[in-house]
């Protein structure tokens, strides 16, 4: 069977990964905007009202991903188990769009307590509240994506594929 990012095996893996990701967000209560605000509210440190939980989520995720995202190289895999190749960005330079985009994202994150993962995860918990945010987010991303494409005057860029041995 030809390898594809949407082969049956890849789809099963995407489903397992998505479910695990959702359980992780939910168990860690990252699905609660209040929990995010209580982390971002550094001014609450002196009063003891600061909640550092989010740092523990990132820490736990980082430790596992640090090994998981290297395992293919350590095992000498030229291809992922089901997909055609390992896809990773070719970008290495810190540029203006990286900083400006991240700042815009941070403003929206601070205003809402929602980043993309928890917002989509909340469609399974409080869809009546989360859907508006998710629709606006996806529309914003697609508009910006269309604009970026237009400004670069190029057709949809091909997948940036790097096969790591």
């Amino acid at each position: 069977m030809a390898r594809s990012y949407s082969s049956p095996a890849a789809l099963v893996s995407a489903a397992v990964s998505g479910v695990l990701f959702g359980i992780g967000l939910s168990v860690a209560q990252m699905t609660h905007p209040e929990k995010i605000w209580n982390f971002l509210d550094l001014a609450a440190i002196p009063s003891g009202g600061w909640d550092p939980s989010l740092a523990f989520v990132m820490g736990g995720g980082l430790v596992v991903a640090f090994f998981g995202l290297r395992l293919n190289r350590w095992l000498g895999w030229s291809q992922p188990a089901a997909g055609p190749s390992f896809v990773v960005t070719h970008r290495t330079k810190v540029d203006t769009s990286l900083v400006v985009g991240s700042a815009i994202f941070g403003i929206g994150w601070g205003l809402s307590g929602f980043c993309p993962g928890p917002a989509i995860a909340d469609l399974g918990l409080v869809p009546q509240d989360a859907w508006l945010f998710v629709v606006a987010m996806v529309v914003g991303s697609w508009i910006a994506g269309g604009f970026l494409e237009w400004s670069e005057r190029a057709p949809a860029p091909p997948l940036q594929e790097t096969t790591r041995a």
Partner: protein
Amino acid sequence: MVHFTPLSAAVGGILIGLAASILWLVNGRIAGISNIAGGIYPIRRGDELWRIVFLVALPVGAWLGYWIGPAVFAEVPRELPHITLTPLWLVGAGLLVGVGTRVGRGCTSGHGICGLARLSLRSLVAVVTFMVAAIIVVFIVRHVV
């Protein structure tokens, strides 16, 4: 009411790291949620279905976690998220998050977990930038306005 929940937070983070590792090792793709959702458009044949499957599975997992979390951890209450924001506020913030993650090419998962795990300088700059921006915004909203 502030609860510091280090154990469930770390275990939740480990599950997220596992999810990212599976998607990388089996599919060869980075588990950045903004990229997975935003990358649906422009359409690339053969690169759509796995994104949709992942994005449907994510809220299913969150629902499962709503039951698993309190069953495993005494520190996790069984309560749904409280969304107290007005519709206009949600739409405005959603647009900012959508545009910002597209222009900055990543969010808390893509830059924050995967990028930092790959020791990417770009991701480090992105994480510091969105953290500082969000901290400033929360300070203004909670303590100034």
